């Protein structure tokens, strides 16, 4: 049962409240459905809406996104064109106007597609707790501190790939999400960072796929080999959208479609 809703004007106040047991609330799109219709222990919320965390800074290649920035803000920011297909693949317009970048890091799979992209982009997450701030790579388990921002470097043009296979064109959770940054030189993959959604309880950083891709050409056959190598990294589950079997079965297809565009 909700007992209090705090709306602090700065991060320090928010941190103090969270340290004393309150729960941070971004856009509310994960927490509020639960609080609206289900019994809950006495809960205080700390809304980050006014804490000054909703801004996007782009300086050269360096991107910093405040944690309370909404997905809609990301969608509408022309400097973040590479993330446009990512956020538009998430939920719907009236949800994206609430849901935040920080909140997406905590979304349970098969949601959280922006988090998948941020892992591929090697983003760093800044958190603040009572004992100061710290930085963690996106994809790591996040302690229940307040996320203040995520930062990453814009990848070279044409190197970022993203495919979200879902049951519907718009507004559906993921079956398989593939986000990757693949660098090629002279027809050979020189670096690859591949993150997967929908295929495990958390975002999967597909190390085995990356290892299989690097050093060879980006061909259908090579990707097939990489997908086979990546199978062991998947831990898909049955849910209302698709079975574990189906997710694993179509993973190679969507990996190829993400990396080759066909």
């Amino acid at each position: 049962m909700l007992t209090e809703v705090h709306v602090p004007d700065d991060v320090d106040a928010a941190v103090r409240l969270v340290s004393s047991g309150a729960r941070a609330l971004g856009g509310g799109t994960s927490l509020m459905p639960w609080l609206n219709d289900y019994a809950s222990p006495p809960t205080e919320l700390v809304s980050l809406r006014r804490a000054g965390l909703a801004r996007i800074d782009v300086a050269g290649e360096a991107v910093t996104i405040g944690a309370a920035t909404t997905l809609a803000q990301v969608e509408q920011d022309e400097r973040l064109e590479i993330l446009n297909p990512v956020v538009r693949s998430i939920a719907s317009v009236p949800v994206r106007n609430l849901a935040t970048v920080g909140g997406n890091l905590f979304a349970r799979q098969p949601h959280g597609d922006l988090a998948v992209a941020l892992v591929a982009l090697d983003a760093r997450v800044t958190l603040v707790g009572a004992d100061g701030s710290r930085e963690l790579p996106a994809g790591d388990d996040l302690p229940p501190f307040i996320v203040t921002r995520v930062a990453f470097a814009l990848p070279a043009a044409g190197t970022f790939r993203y495919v979200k296979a879902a049951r519907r064109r718009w507004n559906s959770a993921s079956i398989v999400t593939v986000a990757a940054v693949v660098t090629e030189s002279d027809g050979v993959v020189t670096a690859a960072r591949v993150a997967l959604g929908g295929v495990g309880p958390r975002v999967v950083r597909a190390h085995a796929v990356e290892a299989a891709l690097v050093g060879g050409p980006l061909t259908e056959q090579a990707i097939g080999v990489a997908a086979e190598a990546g199978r062991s990294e998947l831990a898909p589950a049955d849910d209302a959208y698709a079975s574990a079997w189906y997710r694993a079965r179509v993973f190679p297809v969507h990996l190829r479609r993400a990396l080759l565009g066909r």
Partner: protein
Amino acid sequence: MPRVNPIDSSFFKDERGPGDFTVIGKTVPRSDALGHVTGRTQFFEDRTFPDLAHLKIHRSPHHHALIDSVDTSEALRVPGVLRVLTHEDVPANWYGVLRLIGIGPDDEVVLAEDRVIYRGEPIVAVVADSEAAALEGASKVKVSYTVLPAVLDVEEAMSPDAPVIKKAGTNYFVYEGHHARRIRFGDVEAGFAQADHVFEWRYSSAPIEHAPTETTGCIVEPKPDGRLLIHSNTQAAFFTLDNTALIINRAPTDLQVKGGTVGGGFGGKVDVMVEPLACIAATLTNRPVKFVYTREEEMQVSSPRAAERIYIKDGVMNDGRIVARKIMLYVDAGAYARHSPYGATKAAAHLPGPYTIPNVYADCHCVYTNRTPSSAMRGFGVTIADFAIESQMDRVARALGMDPLQFRLVNAYRDGDMKAHRKEASGTALIEVIQRAAALVGHDLPAEYQAMSSSTPRGAIA
């Protein structure tokens, strides 16, 4: 501009007549549209009361279990909780909605007594000042169970080894002494013996939710004269009133139902699920009480369209005539009958589909399992049967190497044909809709098929 489909007046010209109407046949604007677009249409929940109380349910987490004890003391201590209701507060706890038309037995309980037979079955209702307090109270009800084996498959439920889950002693509805609603027409075995080919396949479906955008609910308002005014989104005002009066043991004249504006029904608001408890709560608290399903309750606890399993065996001649059809149909009624016995009968009357087949045999079973009770939904009894029948028609046509529309036209029912439930067909038009659909997609039909007509007796020259 409205989207209007053309009416092809070249069909049934004589029967259509001049059609010289003033407003009939005209695209008259919808009388409710202005209210819809301005937000002024009043749905049942669009009213406020200063002292409104809220009702929430504690439900079974088990498919099948004995209830050993129910402890509501902690729920009553939640601030804002006004009352808890158990089966002892329901004057006529055993009921069946079809008793209004004389169909029994009363097989369902409003609130569980000594057992639960599906996951989500209501056990205790909690009435509170606020929705949050009612949710909190419902979560604090403590029930201890002895879990029993569950039956979740219709054919397993019919087997003699299955645990019997129903008080009446059978896991199926009994139709005047029979284990199924029967259709017996001609001699189906003779038909198979005569046939050039026999085909048999199985079809099935999973349960489907009505998913109206507005969930099932009501607000019951005690009136100054002691009557109860029920603001409801029921699909059937008097059906709800009469069933509610029987359950709460009040004179029907004590109740008034107001509604008529519903945010989607599709058959999901025909069961009488919320009004009786809200009436009891309003009476005991003397306050207006709202009982509205959460979206999860609507999705998982309100009755779905029944899952069905259908076996169709056809005897077919080389020329495409179906001479025998045998159908074994199982409706998964879930834990309680509700409207499912009626749906299985509706299925029986629909068989063998819109085709004239001289030998038909069907058993339509209404089977109980330990899942959410199914009930009415848009076309129930027919929708899934049509999926099975029309898939079968496609498969048989392909097996015979016949054009799928010609195969249907050969067997299409016509005026004067006797249906399997022994009602003479009249006003038929299957042939014409097939002919017109073929034309719509440029699917050529030979002249003799284009010349067929529903009003020309079978075998006669067109």
